[in-house]
């Protein structure tokens, strides 16, 4: 387990559970928040700090801090602050308690097994700081043996200088089909695809035929030479080879990742772009939309609706978990799903990091 999160005041940050219908709100579980739980929060702050010109690219020079939010009259915390500091500079953001719902779900699991909570029973959770519990603070390295030593290195993040205004002028926004009904969240971090990368992404996602298949986006992290704002350029999509491809899942193997990195290395040398990196993924939900209880895929309004919202182009829990595992430390990373709607038309959704969650976003296509 990764280290527990301790606040600036030296206390341990915990998620606490109570039963939903308990007026006394007796605590039924306490789960320490760990560094792996705030990974997306810290990654996002780093990207914001980079764009603001406050934080640098060398993570070894940046320290991480968590501060409890205001304590409310009922003793619960109003969220927490995550902060990165580099020298005298710092950048911090406030996050609500809801951003740690996965910690609450982790705490609830043993309660379900023990019969204290029913499966799918609603519960309440909130944040609290408590004195550090030594039982929670087992260092990951302790598990490697008493004499183990660990030294973490970070691949240097190289930002390619460019003009964001020129990129914006040379591109147009592309929104997913669902945005006709519900606007995707506006993003500060601009994301540019070359037409080739976009088409290759779809190709990699559809290559599996009736099975799911995937590709990895390769690109560069750019920085506007005037404003220092950071943005991403996606140059190509590499097919994920050696993966297990099934109707409802694609599982990259160790050889898949090795092959992707091998091809990335070749690109870096041939194109003289040592700063190219993996910046996201694309995969296909190539199965049809499920039929309803009556065996119908299309709804009654199908002939009249401008947009078909019966679609399988949506991120699953597995998709999100995979992305968080692969792209920890890469807040610019995106993932794209190509699916179908009930009309058997192409449908897609693109996701990016915002508010420590992966949410739908648009992109810009370079002409």
């Amino acid at each position: 387990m990764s280290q527990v999160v301790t606040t600036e005041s030296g206390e341990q940050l915990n998620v606490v559970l109570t039963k939903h219908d308990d007026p006394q709100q007796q605590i039924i579980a306490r789960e320490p928040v760990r560094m792996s739980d705030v990974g997306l929060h810290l990654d996002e702050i780093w990207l914001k700090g980079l764009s603001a010109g406050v934080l640098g690219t060398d993570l070894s020079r940046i320290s991480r801090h968590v501060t409890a939010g205001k304590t409310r009259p009922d003793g619960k915390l109003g969220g927490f602050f995550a902060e990165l500091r580099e020298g005298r500079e710092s950048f911090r953001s406030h996050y609500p308690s809801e951003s740690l719902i996965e910690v609450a779900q982790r705490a609830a699991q043993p309660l379900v097994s023990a019969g204290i909570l029913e499966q799918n029973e609603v519960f309440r959770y909130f944040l609290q700081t408590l004195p550090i519990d030594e039982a929670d603070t087992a260092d990951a390295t302790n598990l490697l043996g008493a004499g183990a030593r660990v030294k973490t290195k970070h691949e240097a993040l190289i930002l390619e200088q460019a003009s964001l205004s020129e990129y914006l002028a040379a591109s147009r926004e592309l929104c997913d089909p669902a945005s006709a009904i519900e606007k995707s969240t506006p993003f500060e971090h601009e994301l540019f695809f070359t037409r080739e990368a976009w088409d290759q992404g779809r190709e990699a996602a559809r290559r599996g035929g009736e099975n799911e298949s995937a590709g990895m986006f390769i690109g560069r992290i750019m920085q506007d030479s005037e404003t220092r704002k950071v943005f991403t350029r996606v140059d190509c999509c590499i097919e994920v080879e050696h993966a297990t491809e099934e109707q409802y899942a694609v599982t990259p193997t160790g050889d898949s990742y090795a092959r992707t990195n091998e091809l990335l290395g070749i690109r870096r040398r041939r194109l003289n772009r040592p700063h190219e990196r993996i910046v996201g993924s694309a995969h296909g939900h190539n199965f049809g939309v499920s039929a309803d209880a009556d065996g119908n895929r299309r709804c009654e309004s199908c002939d009249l609706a401008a947009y078909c919202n019966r679609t399988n182009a949506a991120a699953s829990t597995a998709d999100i978990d995979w992305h968080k595992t692969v792209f920890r430390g890469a807040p610019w990373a995106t993932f794209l799903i190509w699916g179908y709607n009930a009309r058997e038309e192409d449908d897609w959704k693109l996701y990016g990091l915002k508010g420590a969650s992966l949410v739908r976003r648009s992109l810009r296509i370079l002409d």
Partner: protein
Amino acid sequence: MSSNSTALQEGPVADPLAFTATDVTTSRVVDFSGVDGYRTASELATSIAATLELPENTPYALRDNNRGRMLRDDVSVGSQLPAEGSELTLVPKSHLGQH
């Protein structure tokens, strides 16, 4: 260094171990030394994931990049790797997909 681990062993066990481990995007690299060679590859993978602060609800495996093969989860790492110089990749045992 010895361990009470019940890991399977395949031949002599190198102990302790020194190696380098990275995530699948190779953007973060960790140097380990003095690691108990009697730990299973599965235990080591879990520890590396914790060090890299990766999600804990995902199981992980290790790939020996020098030999281009996955380590056996239930076998001691010291019987699968040399004492020094190995380069490992931490591979999530997870998939993309609808389910």
